[in-house]
Structures are given as C-alpha cells and as structure tokens.
C-alpha cells in the first residue's frame, strides 16, 4: 500500500477539523464532522489493503490460500459508518432545533452558554 492512502486519511481528518473551526453554519459543522470521520475510513481500509488481493470471501472454486484483504478493518469501518450515521442524524436534528429556538445556525450568533 502506498503512502498516499495515509496522507489522504490525515488530510481528511484535518480538513474536517479545520471546517469545524471555521464553520459559519451548524449544518456545515455536522458535515465537517462526517468529513473528519471519513479520514478514519480511509485509514482503516488503507491498513488492510494488499495489492493484488481479493475480497475476503471464500466461495467454492476460490482456493483458501489465495490472498485477501484484511476483513477485520472492513468490519471496523462498517461499525464506524453506523456510528457516523447515528451521530450525523442526531447532530442535524439538534441543528434544526437550534434554528427553531435561536433563529440562527451561525455559531458566532449563539450566545446562550458563555463563561
């Protein structure tokens, strides 16, 4: 596996953080959290990848000695995606409620909690 996958993973993670820091809209913030999480998918899949290896599925006709990519990281990425769906849905629902109660979704305009 080339270094590029790891660089992309790090880039996505940091881009997500940067997006949250600079965000002017809470929906954008929630999406940036997802972008940061995408970095972890790329990282996990990059870790399990082998050049020339197939999917980790053995059917009749496929010799059990044939190389496959690591299924553990794929299971981890799957779990991670489920987590992401839950968290994103929850954050978006809360953003809708913030829009209703505060009349804005700009984090610079939210003043309910300070100090």
């Amino acid at each position, binding site marked *: 596996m080339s270094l590029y996958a790891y660089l992309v*993973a790090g880039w996505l*993670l940091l881009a*997500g*953080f940067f997006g*949250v*820091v*600079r*965000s002017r809209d*809470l929906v954008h*913030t*929630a999406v940036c*959290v997802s972008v*940061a*999480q995408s*970095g*972890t998918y790329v*990282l*996990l899949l990059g*870790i399990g990848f082998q050049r020339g290896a197939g999917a980790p599925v053995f059917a009749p006709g496929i010799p059990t000695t044939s190389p496959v990519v690591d299924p*553990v*990281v794929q299971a*981890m990425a799957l*779990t*991670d995606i489920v*987590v992401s769906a*839950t*968290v994103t849905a*929850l*954050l978006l629902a*809360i*953003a809708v*409620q*913030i829009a209703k*109660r*505060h009349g804005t979704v700009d*984090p*610079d305009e*939210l*003043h*309910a*909690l*300070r*100090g």
Partner: protein
Amino acid sequence: MATGFAAFGTALPALGIAVPLVGACLLLALDQVLPRVAVDALAAVVVLGVAVLMGALVAITASGRVVSWAGGWRPAGGVSVGIVLVADPFGAGLAFLVALLTLAALLYGWQYFSHAEAHLPVLLLLFVAGMTGFALTGDLFDMFVFFELMGAVAYALTGYKIEEPESVQGAFNFGVINSLGAYLCLAGIGLLYARTGQLGLAQLGAALSGHPADLLVLVAFTLVATGWLVKAAAVPFHFWLADAHAVAPTPVCVLFSGVMAPLGVYGVARVYWATLSGTVSAAGVQRALLVLGVLTATVGALMCATQRHLKRLLAYSTIAHIGLFLLGVAALEPAGLAGSALYLAGHAGIKGALFLLVGVLLSRYGCVDEITLYGRGRGSRALGWLYVVAALALAGLPPFGVALGKAISEESLAATWLAVVFTAVSAVTGAATLRAGLRVFFAVGPPPPEHHDEDVTTGEREEREVEPAPARTPPTMLVAILLLLALGLVTGLPAVGSAAGRAAERFTDRAGYLDQVLHGAAAPAVPTPHGAAWTALGAGLGVLSAALAVGLALLVLYAPRLPRTLRVAGARTAPATHALHRLHSGHIGDYAAWLLVGAVALGVLLALPGSAAGATGVTP
C-alpha cells in the same frame, strides 16, 4: 456446584451489558400499553437487577479477574481471534457505581418529568449499557464502540429539554467535540492495529512488549489518550462538560459528573497499564498526566469559584476534581491509583447529591441562579443542612470517601507542592459550593449586587423540570439524595480503602493481566497494599481543606464589609478572571481548535525526553 458458580461468574460481565439493553427495548415496546407508573417501576427493577449483578461481580473479582470470551472463542497458545470481556475489581466497581447512580437518578426522577414519555428511562438504560461495556471490555476497539454508544445516548440526554435554547446548543457542542475526540481515538486504534494486527488490550500488550515505543506507537497512544481525555474533560478538552452539565436534566447530571467523565480517566489508566506500560516511557506519561492534571484542577477551580449558575458551578467543580484524579494516577503506582479510585467513587456520591439538591431548587423556583435565589431557600432548613454537609464533604471533610481518596493520593505523591495543589483545589471548589448554598438556604452575608456580564451564564432562564411546582419535596427525591450521601460516606470506610488498595495492585499487574487473559493462568494473590488507609496526616489535611473552604466562603460572603484596601486588591484580579471566562465562549469552532492544540501538546509531553521524577519525587 463449583463449576456452575464459575459459569455464573463468567456470564456476569455480558449480563451487565445485555440486561439494560433488553430492558430498554422492553420499555420502548411497552411504553404505549403500560401506565407511566409501570414504566418507571420496570426501569427501576431492571437497574436494580444490574446493580445486584454488578455487586456480585465486584465480590467475585476480589479473588481474581473474570475473563469471558464471546462465543467461546478462546485463545489457543496465546493467539486469539475472539472478543473478550475482562472484569477486574476496578472495572466491576465502576459498573456497580454506574448502576447505583442510575438507581438514584431514576428514584429522583420518579414520575418527575412532566411529559408522560418513556424516553428518559429508555435512554438511561442504554446509557448504563454503554458505560458498563466501556468499564468491562478487554478490547480496544470495543472500548471505542462503547465510548460512542454512551456518547450518542449522552448527546440525546443533554438535549432532552429540546425546546430550551441552551439545551440544544449544549447538546450540539457536546456531540461535535466528543465525536471529533472519538475519531482521533479511532485513528490511534487503527495505527496500533496496523503495527500489531491485534485489537485486544492483552494481545496488543503482548505484541508490543519488549520494543521501545517508536514514533508510530507514540502517535497512536497520543490519539487514543486524547479520545479518552476528551471524555474525561481534561483541560483543554473540557469545554463541552460545563455546557452539557448546565443544560442536561438534573438526574442525568448525576451520571455525567459522577461516572461518565471519570470513565475517561479510567480509559487512560486501563490502556496504559494493560497495553503500553512496558512500551511508552513512564516519565513521559507521568509528565503528561501531571501537567494536564494541574492545569485541569486549576482552571476548573477558578472557573468554579466565579460562577453564579449553580449547575455550571458544580460542573466546573467536577472538572477540577477530574484534574485531581489525573494527579492521583500520575504517581503511576498502586497507592495513587487506589486514592484516585476512592476519590472518584466518593465524589460520585457527593456531587450527585449536590446536583439533586440543586434540582430540588430548580423544581421549586424554576431558577438555578445563585444571586436571584438569595435567601429563597430559607424555608427548607433540612435541605440546607444536607447541602452544607455535602459541600464540606466535597471540600475533603473526613470521614467521607472524598477525604480518604484525597489523603491516599496526596501521600502517594511525595512532592509537597502537589499536596498543596490538592488542598487548595479542594478548598476553593468546596468554598464556591458552600458560598452558593449559604446564600440560597441561609441568606448569609449581605444580598449580592445584581450585575450583568455577557460573558457569564446566569441560571435565570431555566425551564422548570416539574409542572406544576410541587408544594413540598417528594419523599423519593429525598431518598435519592440520602442514598447518594450514604454512598459518599460508605466509600470512606477503612475496609473499602484496603479493598481499593488490593484492586489497584491487581489493576497495575500487567503481567498477571496478560497471563490470565491470554493463557488462562490463575490470578496470583495480590500483595498487601501499602498506604491505602486513613492516616492522621491525611485526615488532618482533609480537615484543613474543609476549614479553608469555610473560611474562604465566609470571606467572599462578607467581602463588601472588608477594609477597602483588601477589596481593591481583590478587584485587581477581575481582568484575569474575565479573560478566562471569555475563553469559554460557547463557540464550537473555538472548542475544536483547543482540541487540536491539546492533542499536539499531549503528544509533545509524552515524547519529550527526560524524567519527571524530580517533580514528584517518585521513581517511575
């Protein structure tokens, strides 16, 4: 008979997770057909069941860890593909604490919420499952999964009062920061897997041992520790905690403050001892914990002393105490760890009682603002005295568990200046809590002047959690408060102290952990713990910090009557306090930036060469 008993023991960790999950599903299914009383009762019965199971687990783990492999996928020759739950006395004790606090929360919230929905008990049960799983798992990736499970439930619980502007903002901040922390943590877990091909704590430990930490392992440990420290609300990852505690329903705050945030400290300690203690440099870990601990304790204490919103005040006090837990762990030896564990358990009871007392005020007056509530609680002397006792216990008054844990931690850190930090932080947070209580319940001191500052959150616009306001406090609320105070008292018993000492020996025995999990070896007897007991010095320091708390509280309450020169000197510190408040901006972008800064700083502290032994007087 003996094998049946052993099988029961092995099933306990899984039951601790499964029972609340099944209970939550049952409640959700039966919500439509059962009356509200039955829903509440069912939730209480389920949590009581979990408490009994976890209590049994604590008793069993006293003689060794309980290891259970899911589906019977045991390791062969030290190699495994299975997923494991490992209960040791600390893990089981935390699970027991979770169940007890939830029981108190449910009791307090008995038919408490105006809306007749089962959502709150259901969420609480899911929360129990997540926290129990985090405490009992022996697998790093499962720790992340349970971290996210308790996280997602906690965001929902924080935003439970969905019509309140503060509530939804607090929930959003909490959700974003905790999720970002979790993703850093997952990246760290991925890196460790890339290096070793293992995810179990013991398997990772075995694969890594013998090699000094290289850059990849250091980065991985930094990322994982950042994740847990975000949950622990160590400075500068702490911003979400005050926002979330200030807005969450009061019974939920008991769990947030008492056990959810401290579980982050447990996570750091667990990963360090089970996996990386033979790999990363002890000096680096000690330095990182010392710096973060002192910073967290100081910032928490200063912010606590300058709050008027009572729930925020208690939340910042929790941050300060988490700093002290980190300092106890920083000794990197059993005695300090035992001190931190006792401190944690005692703090959970006392802080829970304080939150519930504030909840009673909220239910009566629809307000948690110290200045508006001045003298309003004069009619309820009994509650006032309970509050004063709890505040003094928080400051370290013997014989409560907080004092015992504090004393043991102080003595494990040989450096005198750290004992001064402990005493000062306990005194300041205790004084702030006491000051608020004396004003509200006893109208001590002249009425505080009302002044508006946009960088301070007042507690005036809170939504009443009970409609209509009860004429008098329901007995269930009082019982819950007394139960939590009793928990604070029981953790101060000498027997509990020596049990914590033995548990800490077990916890730090890395070779024993690896042998028992990977090879099924029997747990060796733990050596007699040293120093996990009351001493005259420890009790004396506890009395001293409580006395200092009373003195400081009275000083602040009667400040307007002080000589003018003293008041001017006090006013000089105002700009610094104001700057500190401005940092806590409630802005999610700021919080995320601090999170990155903190992660980088943590990495630097872990990686710097040299020894921190000079600072603590402890040889790592």
